[in-house]
């Protein structure tokens, strides 16, 4: 929580003013018992008369009005600060998530990130709001009451001090005990979120396998676990109220017996005993409020811990500084590159080396899980190489800024995803200020012109979340167009023609060849037909490079390539 406090900085004024006004309000409240004591001692017992009493009561009302003004201001400032706090937090959290590396994203999972972003931040916001409103006020009233008690009588003050010490132990004890439990509750909530998301993303598959009832049963189990955790922590935090109640009332008993002795010996008057009793009563009221607050605050602490976990994640990607000179040739060069995904027993890529000249087309082919996607993901520095280096114009990709690097690259990922918005907005992902002409040029090259023509609103056609209102092939061509809009120096097509029919695929390859800015193209494919015209073909198998060369060379020299090729052409009668 402490680390998150910086988000209050921008709201320093509000976060100071809110408790300050609360303190003011509380101080005026502390005067109330004094006024009442005066009424009893002077007005009633002392015989100061009607006028005195009326005046005293008017003072009480006046105190109420001042209290109202203070409280309203405090509420406003607290709300402002709390809301601003969570705004800043959400902003940072979101940008943090965006800065995570591919492997961190893989490890975290979408659902977890979503609950942290929503549920956890909400809890923290209510916590901050309540803290600003009450956390200052309550201790102030409690300690204020104690000081007042000392003013009235030292021994009575001592009773207050002891009672407060005991209260602190109880309150913090319960808090400490329940923070980890609340963390557990949020963890279980994560799992509920995962279930909900999965049942939506996998709706077709789940229904195809008639898994609806099992899904419900499994969700029921997880739901039950969540409830169990909630109930358990509830039992502990529910102790707060009764315990404070008991402690305060016992303190009152002690107070009254001490008071009785003092009054009997004549060192204290009755009005003071009443005042002391009233102060204790105020502490009780305050603490009951505090008990509710502390549950919220405890929850916030647990949530803050979870949010912090993400904020503290270090981007795993390495960033070195620029060394070496930039060279024109080779444009891209892999030197003995190895990649390992954390815990895998085999390297995903093992000792891959090759050079590519500017403007060349490189085909990458190989079996499932051979490391094709891994290889192309290294060029924009999505993953780190465990060993070896990747050089672009002679500079290590670790040293070039990711943004600069990725600006050079146009990437068409395997899974064709579009985003909610219009087609135009999606196309402008590649280049913010792309004109309609630039877009249609790219669309044309990506063989997607007919997709847009078929839509009533052309470029303004709405795209639903994930592009659900487009077919797989349409999405794929649009994602290719999206990458072409920015006229990248390096174009990476990661098996991105898989949903295209052969005619479209062929036309696409032709148009890519004729692009006037002649990008360096990497094509990952299963089909030799897609890459056979490449200047260089890299054949991967189990992470190792087992062949490199042109189509003709590889047909002669590379057994695996030959097999792949003939598996496609034997039957199709090339």
């Amino acid at each position, binding site marked *: 929580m402490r680390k998150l406090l910086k988000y209050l900085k921008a709201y320093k004024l509000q976060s100071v003013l809110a408790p300050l006004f609360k303190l003011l309000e509380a101080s005026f409240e502390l005067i109330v018992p004094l006024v009442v004591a005066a009424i009893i001692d002077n007005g009633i017992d002392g015989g100061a008369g009607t006028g005195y009493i009326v005046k005293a009561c008017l003072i009480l009302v006046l105190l109420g009005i001042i209290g109202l003004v203070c409280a309203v201001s405090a509420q406003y400032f607290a709300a402002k600060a709390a809301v601003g706090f969570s705004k800043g937090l959400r*902003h940072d959290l979101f940008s943090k998530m965006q800065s995570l590396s591919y492997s961190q994203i*893989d490890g975290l999972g979408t659902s977890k990130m979503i609950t942290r972003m*929503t549920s956890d931040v909400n809890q923290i916001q209510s916590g901050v709001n309540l803290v600003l409103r009450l956390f200052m006020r309550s201790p102030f009233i409690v300690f204020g009451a104690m000081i007042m008690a000392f003013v009235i009588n030292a021994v009575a003050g001592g009773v207050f001090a002891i009672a407060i010490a005991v209260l602190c132990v109880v309150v913090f004890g319960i808090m400490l005990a329940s923070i980890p439990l609340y963390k557990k509750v949020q963890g279980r909530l994560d799992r509920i979120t995962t279930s909900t998301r999965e049942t939506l993303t996998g709706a077709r598959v789940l229904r195809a396998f008639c898994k609806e009832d099992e899904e419900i049963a499994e969700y029921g189990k997880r739901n039950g676990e969540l409830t169990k955790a909630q109930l358990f922590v509830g039992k502990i935090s529910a102790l707060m109220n009764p315990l404070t109640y008991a402690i305060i009332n016992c303190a009152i008993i002690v107070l009254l017996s001490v008071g*009785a002795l003092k009054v009997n010996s004549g060192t204290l008057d009755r009005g003071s005993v009443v005042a002391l009793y009233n102060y204790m009563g105020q502490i009780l009221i305050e603490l009951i409020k505090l008990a509710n607050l502390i549950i919220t605050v405890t929850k916030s602490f647990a949530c803050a811990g979870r949010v912090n976990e993400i904020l503290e994640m270090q981007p795993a990607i390495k960033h070195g500084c620029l060394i070496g000179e930039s060279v024109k040739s080779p444009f891209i060069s892999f030197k003995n590159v190895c990649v390992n995904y954390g815990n895998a027993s085999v390297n995903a890529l093992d000792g891959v080396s090759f050079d590519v000249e500017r403007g060349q087309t490189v085909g990458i082919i190989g079996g499932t899980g051979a490391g094709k996607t891994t290889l192309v993901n290294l060029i924009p520095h999505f993953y780190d190489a465990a060993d070896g280096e990747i050089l672009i114009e002679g500079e290590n990709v670790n040293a070039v800024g990711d943004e600069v690097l990725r600006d050079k690259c146009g990437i068409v990922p395997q899974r064709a995803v579009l985003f909610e918005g219009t087609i135009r907005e999606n196309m402008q992902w590649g280049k913010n200020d792309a004109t309609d002409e630039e877009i249609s040029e790219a669309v044309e090259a990506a063989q997607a012109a007919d997709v847009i023509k078929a839509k009533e609103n052309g470029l303004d056609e709405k795209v639903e979340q994930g592009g659900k209102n487009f077919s797989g092939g349409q999405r794929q061509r649009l994602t290719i167009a999206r990458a072409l809009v920015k006229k990248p120096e390096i174009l990476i097509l990661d098996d991105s023609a898989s949903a*295209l029919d052969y005619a*479209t695929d062929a036309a696409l390859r032709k148009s890519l060849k004729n692009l006037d800015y002649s990008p360096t193209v990497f094509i990952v494919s*299963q089909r030799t037909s897609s890459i056979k015209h490449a200047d260089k073909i890299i054949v991967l198998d189990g992470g190792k490079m087992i062949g490199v060369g042109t189509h003709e060379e590889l047909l002669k020299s590379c057994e695996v390539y030959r097999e792949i090729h003939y598996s496609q052409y034997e039957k199709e009668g090339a």
Partner: protein
Amino acid sequence: MAKTQKSVLKRVLKQLKGYKFWLILTVFFALVTVAGNLILPVLFGQIVDLIVGKNNVEFKAIYFKFIIIGAVIAITCIAQWLMSIINNHITYNVVKDIRAEAFAKIQRLPLKYIDAHSYGDIVSRNIADVDQFADGLLMGFTQLFTGVLTIIGTLVIMFVINWVIALVVFVITPLSLFVAKFIASKTYSMFKKTSQIRGEQTAFIDEMIGNLKVVKAFNREDENIEKFDEINSRLTSASLKSIFFSSLTNPCTRFVNAVVYAAVALSGALMLIGTFSVPAVSFTTGLLVSLLSYANQYTKPFNEISGVITELQNAVACAGRIYELIDEQPQKPDAENAKQLSDVEGNIEFENVYFSYTADKKLIENLNIKAKAGQRIAIVGPTGCGKTTLINLLMRFYDTTGGSIFVDGNNIMDVTRKSLRKNYGMVLQDTWLKSGTIRDNITIGKPDASEEEIIEAAKAARSHNFIMQLPKGYDTEIAEDGGNLSQGQKQLLCITRIMLCLPPMLILDEATSSIDTRTEVKIQEAFAKLMSGRTSFIVAHRLSTIKEADIILVMKEGNIVEQGTHTELLSLGGFYSKLYNSQFAV
């Protein structure tokens, strides 16, 4: 209160019905707690009366009272604790019920709804909204009952002590209720709006975080943050409004309380010094002290109740969004006399089928297909021609808008969805894996499969080797949506699923699009074995798969333009032959 709000509230109360016993119990403990809270000031007041002045203190009586007080404290504490536990029990179980209901509802929603709504928003309803609802409900329970009971109890006692002062109190207090109600009615819509924007934000997060890799590939981080900040700002100002206005209640009612307190002090003191007096009412300073303390106790619940009311506003607004989901029209249930489809041979017939996703855009018109048992039907055509739609109809993910589909002569509207789908094995291009172990994912269609069966299926689907290379083999946990597996590996797992349960009809939509061709050739052997005797629908671009089909349906813009075997279609020299020859171009 707005009408919708009322109906939502009614729903909540209905939801509580099942917890009658617990509700009675919590009211009982609330009564005990309140009684304890109310008796204590009387006892303390009596003690104050026993402390009169120097050498005028009755210690014996005081100590006796202390014993009684101790007992009252003990009982009250226990009652309070039990009450809280019961309240937790009710709230969290109600919330559990609601979540379960919402989740079960999602299973029954037509795919049309799921396809058309953002996942993030639905998730936000089931998670964030339900959470807020729980908070409100819990607060309601803990404070509403005790609050109301305290008010009644205090009033009664005050009337007993001094009816004049009690009357003064009674007249002033409705003010605070009025204030609370006024504020509450204003804040409901604010809370609803906040909740709505929160849903929108969740949807955005879901979309962008879910596809973070694409976002990063396009350096879109900054633009996203901009968009995010825009939503975030709207959320912030909406929350500020709702939080601030709702929190006004407390200071306002507290002010009313201060007035009440002053009034009690004034009238009490004046009575004591005899400015005015009411016959037949005896009054002491001790009683005034008790009364003042009651005035405090009496007004406190007003504060709390007003707080509860705002919290409940929020809760009801959130509950409204969940009920909206729960009340969504479910898919048409299976016909009452729906048959269980069993012993399927695999004769499938489309008869004059019409279908469109939106009424104003025609897609499939008057489609007729006849597939005999064991035939292999390939569907080819340019992207967007309706191939996926055909699958949606076969599996009854969507219902036809006209015409019928028959399986072995049974109209698929007359058989249960479950039995229909159980008879299909489906592999889609868009691979989907659930979080869990590899084993969980493979056995999804046959949970009781033995280890040998699993391995055999995995070997047939050529996934065994890569699975064995994973850190824990078949027990390797895979993250949401497959995590580190490659697209091809995911597809192999999806095929393994089908190889394991061997249904009588198959739908393969680009089932091998991400798998390398060498592996594919090997899988094809297994597929061929699988397909023999099974009616199969195949969508593929690799014409090698298609060539051997019994019927090739060539689709274009929702219609079948050509139909026949590979050789027939080639000799026709039409659309298909153009398509086929194009792959050797360039």
